[in-house]
């Protein structure tokens, strides 16, 4: 029976090749998109899942509440905190401090291997870190390898890199920052791609220079602390001890902000909006949910297509239903027969979808800059998903048509008297309206995303971003002596317009906030974002003054420049009023000499912070070079060689400023692209469906059309008649879509502090697009119907 049904199904599919192609193609595109979304979501939700004690691992993070309502979050903790936590909390099995840092790694030349000199990210970790996280150790173990000072554990990859083979690494040394030699005492397996820890070089915590720091007042995002809860302890049990802990150590009455800590579960790290992580990969749940919703939309539109086409086609199968029924087929058997036909189509579509997604996977990897590899069959869960997809789609798409078709009365079916609207024309219309509503929502969403992204790209940030290169500076005292010489030599390079030493560009990932006093001995009730720069900074980045003048040349704190937001927060109306007032930051005192126009110091997601700008030679981390666009390539080569002659022990690193800025919106870029792609897929599927439906309607109304023609209707009138019902549906769909899209889009835009005004145009435009595509599709198809020979249609009866 099954075999025969399968054969019949295939023959039927072949007989209605056009419909089958539409069905299979629409479905497979939808399914392929779903598969891609699934692979993406699986990857994003798989972060940090593979540790044995994962459920009990928490990260201690910090936040500050300010009197003005602002909140500030940091993934770091004060450096003395881990030791204090270990001492005061009985609820933790293990506590581990881990410190992120960076510097020059040097590995001596080995036989057959050149010397290695590289700027690398390094970590100082307590042995307990590896008791909390069960890394696989290829050599050594946490309790021996990371105890003594000046020992280092390498990842397999790093060890292979430095010594050719990790087996040769043990006992060898690597040099850090031209100062200390570290002995390799252990090798651990590499972190997987889906890890929030990019640990390659791990020094023993005992080697960390400020390991005994007692400074509770300063928090760096580089100092993280992890705890392993004892079995049976809940995070909620920690509220009271944490309060006592805060009172004991961190009740600084003078600090402007009130500090607090949160125990953040390990599995939340990758999805956290407020806190970063070492691997700098994160994906908020909001975005994942957004994608899943798009996936469901896709699936729904594809299924609606299927239902529409299948019910439309049902009439042609009615005779078969009738005959089968009088031969003794039960309704249940017919339902299964039709369902298995749907399953067959779905299966074919799924195979095609696998091919399509395999083809697009490299594109998706590119989207992530190639640091992720996706594979269709790398994870067994994919098979479960595919199987689930097959079952769900078969039922979702097949059940209704199967119930309709199997429900035909045999007496009517045999006489071909099943009413043409047997499939419930009302239902079919509703489905089309839903489909178009989804399409319209996505069109609107895509338009708004595109607009906002171009707004971000083109918005003036208040400073120059083009043709500025940032070169990292070595910061040891010996190198600092060479800064002036470096500057002179750079100034002589052709194509360099201006040079500035600074701690950070106007807008940067690395930010430093600190308390200050203004015109009094008391700290202001908010903190200022500080930028430590030399006198050329303002010219290099094109910052504009609204009062006063730039800093004059100085190697120490002597004068201050502030931004508009800072004086607004101080409740000063006239910028000229602050000129000459005395400020004190980091123990340095001096007058304010200038006020700069506000510029965006964070990404456009966030508000502009109050900023204080001053000079202090010892804090410069990079040199910003404004270049002549015409000679950029040449100039940069010379800059590099100058750097290498002056600082031979260091590694030349250079970034273009505008590239850095793009990095702020990486998530948006990725999501924006995915959004655009999947929206076009939905639009495409919907219109395929529309075409199928109008073809069917046209065929069905052939006789009506013929009669109308005999009665004297013109082709144009007939096309108008066929168009109007569809246009109404599209209109209603748009009306449904507008409020829904408005809510979605409004929410998305709310994530940007600087955003476009939501106008009516994307909505109107969505309607125009959907309407015109409808008209084109329907007219194309109905023209053929209207032109058809009248006699052919009326002959048969």
């Amino acid at each position, binding site marked *: *029976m099954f075999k*025969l049904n399968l*054969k*019949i199904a295939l*023959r*039927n599919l072949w*007989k209605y090749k056009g419909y089958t192609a539409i069905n299979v193609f629409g479905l497979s595109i939808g399914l392929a998109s779903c598969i891609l979304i699934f692979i993406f979501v699986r990857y994003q939700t798989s972060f940090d899942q593979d540790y044995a004690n994962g459920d009990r691992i928490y990260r201690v993070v910090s936040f500050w509440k300010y009197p003005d309502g602002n909140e500030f979050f940091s993934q770091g903790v004060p450096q003395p905190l881990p030791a204090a936590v270990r001492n005061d909390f009985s609820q933790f099995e293990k506590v581990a401090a881990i410190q992120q840092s960076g510097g020059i790694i040097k590995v001596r030349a080995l036989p057959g291997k050149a010397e290695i000199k590289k700027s690398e990210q390094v970590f100082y970790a307590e042995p307990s870190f590896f008791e909390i996280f069960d890394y696989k150790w290829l050599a050594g173990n946490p309790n021996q390898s990371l105890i003594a000072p000046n020992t280092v554990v390498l990842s397999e990859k790093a060890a292979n890199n430095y010594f050719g083979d990790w087996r040769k690494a043990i006992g060898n040394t690597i040099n850090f920052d031209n100062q200390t030699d570290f002995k390799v005492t252990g090798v651990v397996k590499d972190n997987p791609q889906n890890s929030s820890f990019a640990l390659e070089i791990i020094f023993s915590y005992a080697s960390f220079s400020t390991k005994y720091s007692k400074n509770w007042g300063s928090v760096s995002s580089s100092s993280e602390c992890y705890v392993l809860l004892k079995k049976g302890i809940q995070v909620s049990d920690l509220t009271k001890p944490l309060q006592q802990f805060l009172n004991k150590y961190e009740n600084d009455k003078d600090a402007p902000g009130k500090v607090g800590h949160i125990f953040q579960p390990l599995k939340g790290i990758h999805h956290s909006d407020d806190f970063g992580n070492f691997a700098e990969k994160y994906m908020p749940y909001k975005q994942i949910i957004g994608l899943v919703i798009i996936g469901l939309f896709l699936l729904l539109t594809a299924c609606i297509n299927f239902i529409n086409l299948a019910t439309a086609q049902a009439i042609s199968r009615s*005779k*078969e239903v*009738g*005959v*089968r*029924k*009088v*031969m*003794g*087929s*039960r*309704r249940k*058997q017919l339902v299964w027969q039709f369902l298995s036909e749907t399953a067959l189509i779905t299966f074919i579509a799924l195979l095609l979808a696998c091919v399509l997604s395999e083809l697009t996977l490299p594109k998706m990897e590119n989207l992530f800059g190639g640091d992720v590899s996706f594979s269709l069959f790398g994870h067994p869960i994919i098979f479960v998903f595919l199987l689930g997809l097959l079952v769900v789609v078969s039922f979702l798409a097949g059940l209704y048509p199967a119930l309709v078709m199997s429900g035909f*009365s*045999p*007496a009517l079916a*045999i006489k071909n008297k099943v009413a043409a609207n047997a499939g419930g024309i009302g239902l079919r219309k509703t489905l089309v309206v839903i489909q178009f509503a989804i399409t319209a929502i996505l069109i609107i969403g895509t338009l708004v995303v595109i607009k906002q992204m171009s707004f971000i790209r083109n918005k003036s940030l208040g400073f120059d971003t083009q043709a500025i290169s940032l070169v990292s500076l070595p910061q040891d005292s010996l190198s600092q002596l060479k800064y002036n010489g470096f500057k002179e030599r750079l100034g002589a390079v052709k194509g360099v317009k201006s040079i500035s030493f600074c701690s950070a560009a106007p807008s940067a990932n690395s930010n430093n906030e600190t308390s200050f006093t203004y015109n009094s001995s008391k700290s202001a009730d908010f903190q200022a974002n500080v930028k430590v720069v030399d006198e050329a900074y303002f010219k290099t980045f094109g910052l504009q003054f609204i009062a006063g003048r730039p800093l004059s040349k100085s190697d120490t704190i002597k004068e201050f420049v502030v931004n508009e937001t800072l004086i607004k927060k101080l409740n000063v109306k006239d910028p000229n009023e602050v000129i000459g007032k005395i400020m004190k930051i980091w123990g340095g005192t001096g007058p304010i000499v200038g006020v700069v126009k506000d510029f965006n110091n964070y990404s456009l997601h966030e508000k502009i912070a109050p900023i204080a700008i001053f000079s202090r030679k010892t804090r410069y981390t990079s040199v910003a070079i404004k270049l002549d666009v015409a000679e950029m390539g040449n100039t940069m080569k010379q800059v590099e060689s100058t750097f290498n002659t002056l600082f031979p022990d260091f590694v030349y690193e250079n970034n273009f400023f505008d590239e850095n800025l793009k990095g702020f919106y990486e998530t948006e870029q990725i999501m924006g692209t995915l959004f655009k792609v999947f929206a076009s897929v939905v639009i495409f599927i919907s219109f395929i469906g529309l075409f199928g439906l109008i073809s069917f309607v046209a065929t069905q109304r052939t006789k009506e059309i013929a009669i109308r023609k005999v009665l004297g209707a013109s082709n144009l009138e007939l096309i108008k008649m066929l168009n109007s019902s569809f246009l109404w549906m599209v209109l209603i769909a748009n009306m449904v879509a507008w409020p829904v899209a408005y809510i979605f889009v409004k929410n998305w835009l709310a994530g940007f502090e600087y955003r476009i005004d939501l106008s009516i145009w994307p909505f109107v435009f969505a309607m125009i697009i959907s309407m015109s595509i409808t008209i084109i599709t329907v007219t194309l198809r109905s023209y053929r119907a209207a032109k058809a020979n009248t006699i052919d249609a009326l002959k048969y009866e």
Partner: protein
Amino acid sequence: MIELKNIEKYYANKGVKSYILRHVTTSIKQGEFVSIMGPSGAGKSTLLNILGMLEEPTYGEYHFMGEDVTAMKERQRIELYRNHIGFVFQAYHLIDEMTVAENIEAPLLYKKIPGAERKSRIADILDRFNMVAKKDLFPNQLSGGQQQLVGIARALVAQPSIILADEPTGNLQSAQAEQIMDLFKKLNQEENITILQVTHSEKNAQYGNRILTIEDGVIKEDVTVK
């Protein structure tokens, strides 16, 4: 075999009842060959549909092989289809996507007859109808008469006790029609299969041994053919 008592069928439309059948009472015995005749719209087809349980009477009693059809559940009715009733249609109603052999096989599948027996029965009947060479053709590759032969073969292969035929020769030319009617007669006489046909043709009606004439939903005549 079939007992009809006071069968009525009407459609109520805005309170007005339009009758299709009125007070139809009759019985048909095993082995009879009955022709139902009458003008268009008299209710012949409706009566046949009721007999074939494709439609339900509005009122009245219907016993098939001693069982009350009106009280039957869907499941029991389907069992009757599988084991006792074979249908032959004016428009043949072969399944277009199935070959001749597959069309004939279909009812056997529903009867859950094992594969080997299915094969032999199909081979048998194809042989009997001289259609072995055509077994892999599709219906649209056959002439009308051949299609109707397949239709009858399909009805017969499940070995029913009664065949219900709605104008089985209505779409056929006279030579082919004669062939079909001869076949019916032979089946009736040699295999004692009850046959009930609706027909317009006086000539075809003569093949049977009893004629029911219906006019305006009422049985006007019930004559036995000599």
